[in-house]
């Protein structure tokens, strides 16, 4: 039995080097079940790398990551851990040769080994949830960016993940499409999904979380509730970054 107070994600002093680039310099972080954590920071600050380390798309150079009680470095089958972690990418990454429905069905079939009817039902319900059941038989290139991203969220949810990671989910979207994606994410947060979100959407951060992290140069500089971080940050670097972001 797992201790209910144990954080679902436990990160301890992780470092990541890409050759000579030191992308993460000793990051420690704990995320509780049902919590929404938003990470902001300038490009190249290591926030995406941190996210990708959590589901092992990147292997960290040193340090410890425990997800749901499983040490990622000792995990015999990394795929088993990945099944519990959904990921949404900046560039959607829908499978280009498959219809929306097949995008949602494939991993359910080959990874979860669900029966076809069961998988279909789950997929249809999720498409309804993200508001585009009528696009089930469309191909990704027929969808707008916002619709593609909502399908990508549904695809990740179809695996019944315990954690959802969002890597700048709205950065590649036209402004009028950002809201439809954020609404889906907000609904998910309200349902109690554990979420780690890299995003500069201040409105989303305010509505979805009371914990926001500012990263720069591979380190966590500051952690605070959004209202405090956005209005009266403690560190100079945070102030400088926010002054650039907020004046837009």
């Amino acid at each position, binding site marked *: 039995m797992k201790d209910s107070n144990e954080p679902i994600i436990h990160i301890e002093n992780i470092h990541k080097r890409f050759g000579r680039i030191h992308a993460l310099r000793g990051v420690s972080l704990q995320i509780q079940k049902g919590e929404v954590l938003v990470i902001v920071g300038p490009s190249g600050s290591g926030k995406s790398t941190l996210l990708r380390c959590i589901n092992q798309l990147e292997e960290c150079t040193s340090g410890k990551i425990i997800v749901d009680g499983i040490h990622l470095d000792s995990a015999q089958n990394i795929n088993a851990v990945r099944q519990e972690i959904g990921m949404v990418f900046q560039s959607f990454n*829908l499978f280009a040769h498959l219809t929306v429905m097949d995008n949602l069905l494939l*991993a359910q079939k*080959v990874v979860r080994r669900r029966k076809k009817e069961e998988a279909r039902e789950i997929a249809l319900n999720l498409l309804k949830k993200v508001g585009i059941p009528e696009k089930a038989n469309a*191909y990704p290139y027929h969808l707008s960016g916002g619709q593609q991203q909502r399908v990508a969220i549904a695809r990740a949810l179809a695996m019944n993940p315990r954690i959802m990671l969002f890597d700048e989910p709205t950065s590649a979207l036209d402004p009028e499409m950002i809201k439809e994606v954020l609404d889906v994410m907000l609904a998910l947060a309200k349902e109690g999904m554990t979420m780690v979100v890299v995003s500069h959407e201040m409105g989303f951060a305010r509505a979805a979380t009371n914990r926001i992290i500012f990263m720069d140069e591979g380190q966590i500089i500051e952690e605070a509730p959004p209202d405090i971080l956005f209005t009266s940050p403690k560190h100079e670097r945070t102030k400088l970054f926010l002054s650039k972001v907020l004046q837009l």
Partner: protein
Amino acid sequence: MFTRREPKIDEQELTHIPGAEPQNRLDAWWWLVALVAGVIVLLSLLQPDPYWRIILFVRDGIAITVVITVVSFILMLFVGMLGGLGRISKNRVVNLIATLYVELVRGVPLLVQLIWWYFAFPVVIQQIGKWTHISALANFHANAILLAIFGFVFCYGAYMSEIFRAGIQSIPKGQMEAARSLGMSYFQAMRHIVLPQAIRVILPPVGNEFIALLKDSSLVSAVALADLTRRGREFMSANFNPIEVWTMIALLYLVMTLFAARIVNYIERRTKFER
């Protein structure tokens, strides 16, 4: 007298988007295939001697050429896929073997390779058999067609590996990452996500390889295989009519390659997709 006419809108005109022609329409270049085939038929009808005699004489050669080409091609697809996966493998040993294979094979002329497999390889096996006292190996005599097919698969497989490698690498990395993040294994992601998309990319160069192979199959005439080219040479040495023989042989190759090119083109258009 001026009569007012309803403006007539040509629907075809409106919906015509370049590159989006109906896919089932017969390709216009089929007429060239028909033309060459027509010339062959006409020559055989108008002058059965020597043209029809040539065709009768070389038809078993045509069969050998087609069999070698088709069988080699199917096998080299598998070699190419394995080689391509090996070339992008992060496993150093696998990567080294695949790279070594590709680099070595590409550096030796195909004709020399075919001759080596035909004349040197059996002797190598026999020597090994003598040293190890295994009589099955010492008395090794391989079928000429099998050796030729092996030679083609070995050589073309290397070029095919490079085509597969390039095709796989042309698929955005995000596709693999998305598949992995859903819990798929590397091979599941390859099989269900990357390869189906890569196939469409590599179809044109793979089709070209097929046509190149069809022509290169004439090289087996150098290793005592009675393919189309060799049968042509045999007919000529008996009848001394080089113009008629080699014109007919050229036409027969031409009609086969043109036909293959149309088939490749047809498959290409059927599998095209947008991203």
